[in-house]
């Protein structure tokens, strides 16, 4: 099982995503933004960071990187894609996920251990969780406030596409406490919190995040 981790200029958590993939039992494969080469991977992670320094809008420039054309094409064919934090912003900017991420309501960067509820336990990246399960993983962002027009929010909710929700406090003012959403087919997931920072007892607040990376192993096999 080969899982690609894309490095854009300014990607930061690519090393963490790579570790999480390895700990989940898959082979991490480094992918480079400027190539048109997905290196035969079975799934793709877009890691956190500040691609292109968040210039223009967070994720906007990375969404137009050469490799992203390949990612969008393969995602539309069903390849599992996970966007974490900046990766989530890139997926929204690339049109693979609905909504947008804007400056936190309180205008500060915020890093804390955050409780989440898994709303959808049947996506490619969440099937190792139970629906309604509470997990704790770090959240850290300056532009993580999920927004969409009210009608779009209703549609996203109505289609059951909210994958993860903030509970016990909303760290950034996200609408309807939305922490992550999924594509209609459940293959593409984006979330602001960082499951890749919760994969070892030694360094994380929990190991609750590992489930995202083990889930996709089954998703690929069953696909």
């Amino acid at each position, binding site marked *: 099982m080969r899982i690609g981790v894309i490095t854009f200029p300014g990607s930061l958590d690519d090393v963490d995503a790579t570790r999480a993939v390895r700990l989940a039992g898959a082979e991490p494969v480094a992918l480079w933004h400027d190539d048109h080469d997905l290196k035969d991977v079975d799934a793709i992670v877009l890691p956190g960071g500040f691609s292109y320094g968040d210039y223009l809008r967070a994720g906007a420039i990375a969404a137009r990187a050469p490799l992203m054309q390949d990612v969008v094409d393969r995602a539309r064919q069903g390849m599992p894609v996970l966007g974490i934090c900046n990766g989530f912003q890139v997926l929204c900017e690339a049109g693979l996920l609905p909504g947008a991420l804007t400056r936190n309501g309180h205008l500060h960067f915020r890093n804390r251990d955050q409780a989440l509820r898994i709303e959808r336990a049947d996506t490619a990246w969440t099937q190792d969780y139970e629906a309604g399960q509470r997990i704790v993983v770090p959240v850290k962002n300056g532009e993580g406030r999920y927004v969409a027009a009210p009608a779009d929010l209703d549609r996203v909710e109505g289609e059951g596409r909210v994958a993860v929700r903030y509970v016990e406090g909303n760290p950034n003012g996200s609408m309807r406490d939305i922490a992550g959403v999924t594509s209609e087919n459940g293959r593409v997931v984006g979330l602001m919190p960082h499951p890749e*920072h919760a994969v070892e007892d030694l360094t994380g607040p929990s190991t609750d995040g590992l489930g995202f990376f083990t889930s996709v192993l089954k998703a690929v096999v069953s696909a």
Partner: protein
Amino acid sequence: MTQGLSDLDTGPGPLSHQLDTVELAARTPDLEQPYSELGLKSDEYARIRDILGRRPTTAELAMYSVMWSEHCSYKSSKVHLRRFGDLPRSEALLVGIGENAGVVDVGDGYAVTFKVESHNHPSYVEPYQGAATGVGGIVRDILTMGARPVAVMDSLRFGPADAPDTARVVPGVVAGVGGYGNCLGLPNIGGELLFDACYAGNPLVNALCVGVMRHEDVRLAKAEGVGNKVVLFGARTGGDGIGGVSVLASETFDEEGPAKRPSVQVGDPFTEKLLIEACLEIFREDLVTGIQDLGGAGLSCATSELASAGTGGMHVDLDAVPLRDSTLTPAEILMSESQERMCAIVEPGKVDAFLAVCRRWGVLATVIGEVTDGDRLTVDWHGERIVDVPPRTVAHEGPVYDRPMQRPADLDDLQADDPAALPRPVTPEELAAHWLAVVASPDGADKTWVTEQYDRYVRGNTVLAQPDDAGVVRIDEETSRGIALALDGNGRYARLDPYTGAQLNLAEAYRNVAVSGARPLAVTNCLNFGSPEEPEVMWQFAEAVRGLADACRDLGLPVTGGNVSLYNQTGDVAINPTPVIGVLGVHEDVRTRVPTGWRTPGETVLLLGVTRPEFGGSAWASVVHGHLGGRPPAVDLPAEKALGELLAALGREGLVTSAHDLADGGLAQALAESALRYGTGARLTLDGDVFTALFSESAARVVVTTTDPEAVRATAEWAGVLVTELGTTGGDGPDAVLAVDGVAELPLAELRAAWSATLPALFGTPEATVGSVPAGTVPTS
């Protein structure tokens, strides 16, 4: 001040015939030059003329002025700093003082480089950019040594917490430290946040970076090999930060002075992140023979230091330097402190490969010169020679001053003003009130408002971070080898006695590293003082250096480098002498690290070390009485060493479940923090005078918890450390209390409310605005 330069030099264009060349300088010896506007004294200017045998050109004058500034030349501090170099050679020290940062052997073939540097004055003028570029600068210093930067820390001091100007400076500085470090992908693993009236108008912003490499990867800043190319890479050169070191860092702020904002650099962490990755790839492929970052004094510093440390000869063609602003004069280009730039010495055969790596990372790289025969640094502009100097005279042979020193006239009175005479709390109600006051004071309060703005998780190796006593980072995932770091700098102690104060700061950082279970290995420092031209300040500086050097000798620790920040005063009022000391420790296995907080009910709480009635410079005297006087706590280095060895043994054997250092606020502060960390209370009994037990700041003390008190006692007896049983940890639910017989039963909820409310109340409550932002109208994709 750039006016003086522009008078003569103009940029490219039809007026370039006015360029001040070496040839012109030789012909016009009597031309008046604006040396004093550039911060040079008349005897220093005379010496430059002596060295060159003529008047300097405008560009040369610019170079000498920045390189001979206090900030770059250490001219007032050098004679004292020699004490650090005189310490016994440590086996752990791979590279010592003099390079960009010292390098320490941490075992298994790993080397660690770490350093702390000040960005005080820029952070006052422009808090966000000043603090941000402080982080950027120290990160480049670490990178220059060949290391991958792996973590940062910040030690911050501001004026009174409730002063209007503090409210201006604090949010900007914190956002700047966070904004830059977060975007670079470096976890912030700890630091300090303190408030004192002496820092009003002169906040202290000290940033530390630590990097890791293999022994064989150490790089040095020197230009060798005739014909090798000088490559400038990173950001373009602009007009920002011109004269930053000579104007901002080396002179006292004058309240009526002109705005200094143009002297502050502007940071771009995205470019720095690319620069880091490009450099590490360049190191891996062995493409450089020498490398130097461009920080204070910019190209003047990088070229003269590289040449001076190498064989001496270098030629630079200044026209090749990529500019952001084409109107810059050559002198301004040489002085510019534009951020995110590096300078490398590259063999001709490797230049193409070097440029290719830079291209891959989107980093601009330009060959601007080459290493030459001989011992002159020459610079051309538009085909004419504008600099021709011996580089050693610029970089390493600047002026050295043994300035007059005098013990402060008020010190006897200050030391005689013993806090023993202050009214003490007697009733349980009074004791509890004072306890809460110390814990909820801006210095004692919860720092989450700050640290939530910093990424502590990135890179996935952060094992401990604030609020733990030390930051601990894993450096090898296979072996779990790691390092611990702490920064401490109590200015009140140093004001009362700079010799003892510096030693106490070292002892505290040493202890903070030791409580995590690490073995302390090496020391860095950032020495923040007032104007060296004041004999009383110079005395404080000399005493602090002497104290630190003596203590390092006793503890067997080398000083690997450091930074001196002088002129920290506004008008004629100097800050408290503030030697901020960093200690690096090593963990053979970070999985045995010891956290600071209580987690489990039913464990025994023990105090290690001896408590004496010592209140001079204490948080209690300061918070409750606004008092600073008496003598600081006594230093007992053998006791610190014994305690450190005991803690290492207890950590290794897994005999303690938590350990927390006692420092500012004494046991009162340590107990509150231990309980609040994970919300676990305790029932305790304090023997003897309860007031002394709670508020004394005697050094060499730690509170630990254990499930095996007999084993701890036995080990402590072996180490010669006194053990006092305080009680037992208790409930961890909503009803948890921190109970001390005869003092109070403090509900943790109440304690937490007081402790955590302080900073948000002062600097804004993020929660108040969450969700109150109007619903967005951003369309979905």
